[in-house]
C-alpha cells in the first residue's frame, strides 16, 4: 500500500498523467515485458514501461576520427626527436604520387617497448591500455605524410625499425612493411647508441630476421643529431 501511494504521488508529481500516455505511445526504450497494474487511474500506464526521453538527444553525436589520426605520436614518450616523412607512390600508375592513402606507423619506445602489448614473455612491461607511438595520416597530393615522434629503441632479436601499413582510402590493405635504419659510423643509429640500453646484443640488419633477405628499398635516409633531433625520410612504391 505504501509503495502504491508512493508511485501515485510520483505520477502526480510528473506534471500530468497525459504525459505518461503520450510517452508510452512512442516509447523507444521499453523493456520487453509489460504488466498492467490494478490502479484506478485511467491513464493506462504500466509499471514496467520506461518513460521516453523528454530531453534532447544529447550528446549531439558528431564525427570524431579514430584517436590514431594524429601527426604527433609521442604521447609523452621521451627520447631524441624524430620527424618521419613517408612519400607513397603507386606502382600501378607510373609511380605517380598516391594521394588519399591511409598510412599507419608504429614503433617501440626508447626502452624497446610497444604500446598495446605487454605483460607477456616477449615484453615484460604491460602497455596494453596505452597507444603511444602509433599514428595515422592521409597522404597529401604529393603522396606525403609527416609524423612527429622519437627515435625508436630496440629489443632483443630485432634491428631498429618502424612498422608501416598503407591502406587505400576504403581501408583495404595495400602494403605492410617496415622501415630499416642505416648502420655504421656517423649514422643516427650510432649516435643514439641504443639509449641507456647500449648496443650490446643488438641485432644488425644483416642478421635481422625481417631485413636479412634484402632491405635496400626499406632503408630510410636519416639526418640530424641528438641535440637538434633527427629527420627520417623514405619513399615507397605500393600497388594501388
Amino acid at each position, binding site marked *: 500500500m505504501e509503495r502504491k501511494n508512493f*508511485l501515485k504521488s510520483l505520477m502526480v508529481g510528473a506534471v500530468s498523467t497525459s504525459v505518461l500516455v503520450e510517452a508510452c505511445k512512442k516509447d523507444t526504450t521499453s*523493456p520487453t515485458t509489460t504488466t498492467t497494474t490494478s490502479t484506478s487511474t485511467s491513464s493506462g500506464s504500466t509499471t*514496467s514501461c520506461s518513460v521516453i526521453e523528454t530531453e534532447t538527444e544529447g550528446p549531439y553525436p558528431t564525427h570524431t576520427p579514430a584517436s590514431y589520426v594524429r601527426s604527433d605520436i609521442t604521447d609523452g614518450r621521451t627520447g631524441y626527436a624524430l620527424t618521419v616523412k613517408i612519400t607513397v607512390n603507386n606502382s600501378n600508375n607510373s609511380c605517380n604520387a598516391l594521394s588519399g592513402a591511409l598510412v599507419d606507423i608504429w614503433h617501440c619506445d626508447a626502452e624497446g617497448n610497444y604500446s598495446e602489448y605487454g605483460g607477456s614473455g616477449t615484453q615484460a612491461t604491460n602497455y596494453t591500455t596505452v597507444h603511444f607511438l602509433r599514428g595515422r595520416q592521409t597522404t597529401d597530393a604529393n603522396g606525403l605524410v609527416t609524423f612527429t615522434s622519437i627515435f625508436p629503441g630496440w629489443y632483443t632479436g630485432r634491428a631498429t625499425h618502424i612498422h608501416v601499413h598503407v591502406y587505400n582510402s576504403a581501408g583495404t590493405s595495400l602494403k605492410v612493411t617496415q622501415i630499416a635504419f642505416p648502420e655504421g659510423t656517423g649514422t643516427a643509429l650510432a649516435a643514439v647508441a641504443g639509449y641507456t640500453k647500449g648496443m650490446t646484443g643488438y641485432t644488425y640488419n644483416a642478421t635481422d630476421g625481417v631485413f636479412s633477405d634484402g632491405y635496400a628499398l626499406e632503408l630510410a635516409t636519416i639526418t640530424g643529431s641528438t641535440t637538434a633531433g633527427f629527420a627520417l625520410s623514405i619513399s615507397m612504391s605500393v600497388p594501388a
Partner: protein
Amino acid sequence: MSNRVITLCYRKIIDINAAKQWDKLVFEASYMEFKMQAQNYSGGTAFTSYADLLRHVPNAQAIAGMVMPAITGYVQQFANIVPDILNNVGKRFLKFNRFQFEIINSDILDKTKHQVAVNFYTDSLLWHDTVDNFLLVSDHKPAAIIDEEMLSNLFQLQPYVNIHTIKNLQ
C-alpha cells in the same frame, strides 16, 4: 532496511541495424578500424572472420584493443553519463568512469557480420529500496552521513543492464 552499494554494467550492443546516430557512427568507425587492423593478422591466411582469426592466428586477441581507439572519441561525447538508461522521469542519470570495448563478431569481407558492444561500468550507487519494479538509488558518497537527505533516482533494470558488483554496508 539494509543499504547495499552496487555498480551496474550496461552492455550496449551495436550492429548493422543500429538506428541512433551515435550507434551508427560507432558501427561505421569500428568496422573500418576492424578491417584495417585485422589485415595485420589475416595476411597470408584465408581467414576473414573475427572468430577464425581468434582461433587460428596467434595474438589476434589484440585486435579488440587495437580497434578501441577508433571509438573512444565517441564515448567521450557522453561526458561520463551512461546512454539509453533513463530514470523514471526520462533522464539519463548513471555516471560512468570506465568502459570496455568488445568485438562480438565481424568479418573483413562482410559488414553485416560486424557486431560490437560497449560496456559501461557505473560509479558506485547506494541501493536504498525496491519500489515495485524500480530500484531506488543514489550516488554513493562514502563520507556522507546516511541519515542526510540526498538526491535519488528511480529506475528499472532492463535488458543488458546487470548489477556488476554488490557490497553490503554494515
